[in-house]
């Protein structure tokens, strides 16, 4: 059951081979055993999860089940869930029990899925290693001295260690795809606007997008069917007819034009990762895909532009944490201003404070044009590169991250080195394009490598098709970390 696909779990539940309560307990027990070592979950509430599981069992008995009914799903602790403590990895929200559900949580609840717990993450999703969490770093299940990637590292570690069959994540500059790559699982960031941001604690609103994390592309498609959908409460939610993201899974790849950006195979790419990516490209060609070479000439500017735009939006979004309406409030203060200063100094960790300062600076009087406006113009150039590229190809593939998982602490003191981890993932966020990462082999020290797939706007079904056909021909996605007790 631990290794079963969501379809297999759904069938087992329908055929009464296992109940949702038993299945939920199986994963809760495993989480209880492994979490002390991996720290993938911040909050687990056995009673709440089992109550949902029993309700799902009743629904199944009545013949009212949907594809995810009774299946436990872990939520990144950035999605608020009614009655659940929701911390966003921060001391600022350590006492915050949400009075409402995020749209994503509502949709999973309506589908009959069970909330398995809230997963650990970089504080306010600002990080690429899941080390900046107030609740301690997440460990990579493949090697516990390594980071799992971030910021959705709790979700990817949970799926990799088989503590959860599936999980949710969010991606502002690579926070679903980079940890999926470093943890050896599959993750998808949909087209901007496809998944509602309502109840997803805001980091950089023009970039933030929720998405699924699972063991396979087939599972991702099933999860996206539940997560995606119009929501009037998110002013950037896209109004589109519902799609079945599984519809193209079985389509052959013959004739699919797969493009490789020349810029993504430059100096910064580790040789072991490059080798695994080349092998994956050869496999795609064997499946009938046609390889074309493209150029994304401005992609090298994506990290600088991102580190203006994302902190600028974050400095505005995080101004709401003032100790008045919710969250941490300093114990001692002289006056109102002092209360704000102390509350925010105590409640935010070093990386969050740093990014708020960057954002405040680039938006401040006299610097707006030089930084913020300039970054928005670069953003346009990067998006235009993709518009030109998609005239020659159907999907763009390459490495998700420049290296395999690095050691915990290795980049913690050097923000710039940490930021450069997201060099291949950030362009899709800036352009608003859908992108995903799937396991495609192993590099140095037997650590997983991820293949990055970027599609045109709303082409998720086609990307999932490519990923599924690749996973039918390979077994990288079925490998699981050794050394973890069963």
């Amino acid at each position: 059951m631990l290794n079963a696909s969501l379809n297999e779990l759904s069938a087992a539940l329908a055929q009464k081979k296992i109940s949702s309560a038993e299945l939920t307990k199986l994963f809760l027990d495993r989480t209880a055993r492994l979490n002390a070592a991996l720290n993938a979950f911040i909050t687990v509430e056995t009673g709440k999860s089992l109550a949902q599981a029993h309700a799902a069992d009743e629904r199944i008995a009545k013949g009212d089940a949907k594809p995810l009914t009774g299946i436990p799903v872990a939520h990144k602790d950035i999605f608020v869930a009614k009655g659940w403590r929701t911390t966003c990895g921060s001391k600022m929200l350590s006492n915050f029990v949400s009075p409402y559900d995020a749209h994503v949580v509502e949709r999973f609840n309506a589908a009959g899925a069970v909330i398995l717990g809230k997963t650990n993450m970089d504080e306010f999703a600002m990080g690429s290693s899941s080390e900046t969490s107030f609740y301690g770093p997440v460990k990579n299940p493949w090697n516990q001295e390594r980071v799992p990637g971030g910021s959705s590292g709790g979700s990817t570690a949970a799926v990799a260690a088989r503590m959860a069959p599936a999980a949710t994540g969010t991606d502002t500059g690579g926070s679903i795809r980079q940890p999926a790559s470093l943890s050896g699982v599959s993750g998808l960031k949909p087209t901007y606007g496809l998944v509602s941001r309502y109840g997803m604690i805001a980091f950089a609103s023009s970039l933030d997008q929720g998405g699924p994390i699972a063991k396979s592309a087939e599972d991702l498609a099933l999860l996206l069917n539940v997560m995606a959908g119009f929501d009037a409460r998110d002013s950037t939610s896209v109004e589109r007819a519902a799609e079945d993201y599984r519809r193209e899974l079985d389509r052959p790849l013959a004739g699919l034009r797969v493009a490789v950006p020349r810029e993504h195979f430059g100096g910064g790419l580790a040789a072991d990762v490059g080798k695994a990516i080349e092998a994956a490209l050869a496999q795609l060609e064997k499946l009938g895909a046609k390889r074309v070479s493209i150029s994304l000439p401005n992609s090298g500017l994506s990290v600088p532009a991102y580190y203006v735009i994302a902190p600028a939006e974050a400095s505005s979004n995080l101004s709401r944490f003032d100790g008045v309406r919710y969250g941490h409030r300093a114990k001692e203060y002289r006056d109102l201003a002092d209360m704000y200063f102390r509350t925010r100094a105590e409640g935010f960790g070093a990386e969050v404070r740093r990014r708020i300062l960057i954002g405040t600076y680039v938006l401040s009087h006299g610097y707006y044009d030089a930084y913020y406006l300039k970054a928005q113009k670069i953003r346009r150039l990067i998006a235009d590169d993709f518009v030109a590229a998609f005239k020659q190809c159907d999907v763009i593939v390459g490495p998700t991250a420049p290296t395999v998982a690095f050691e915990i602490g290795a980049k913690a003191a050097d923000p710039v080195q940490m930021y450069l981890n997201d060099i291949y993932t950030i362009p899709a966020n800036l352009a608003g394009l859908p992108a995903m990462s799937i396991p495609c082999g192993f590099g140095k020290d037997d650590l997983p490598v991820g293949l990055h797939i970027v599609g045109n706007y709303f082409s998720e079904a086609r990307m999932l098709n490519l990923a599924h056909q690749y996973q039918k021909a390979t077994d990288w996605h079925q490998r699981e970390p050794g050394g973890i007790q069963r």
Partner: protein
Amino acid sequence: MPLSLQEVQRVAELARIGVSDAEAQTVLAQLNDIFELIARMQKVDTEGVEPMSHGQELKLRLREDIVTERDQRERFESVASNVEQGLYLVPKVIE
């Protein structure tokens, strides 16, 4: 252009985040590294390029001007640190 310690203190003031002198020194060095990375943008000619503020070119939706929220004051105030008679309490602002 490297930042000065005074600028870090001024930005922290604007952001309402208390920063000690020692901390400001550490942050200064890190921010200057980050701004060196950001400075790569300045070499690019962006004359006439339309700024892109969002991942999707969306028009804001309009809706009927009617009440859609119900009163949930108690629920939302239940997570505040200091509330009295339905009001959020903060330190005295006007003497």
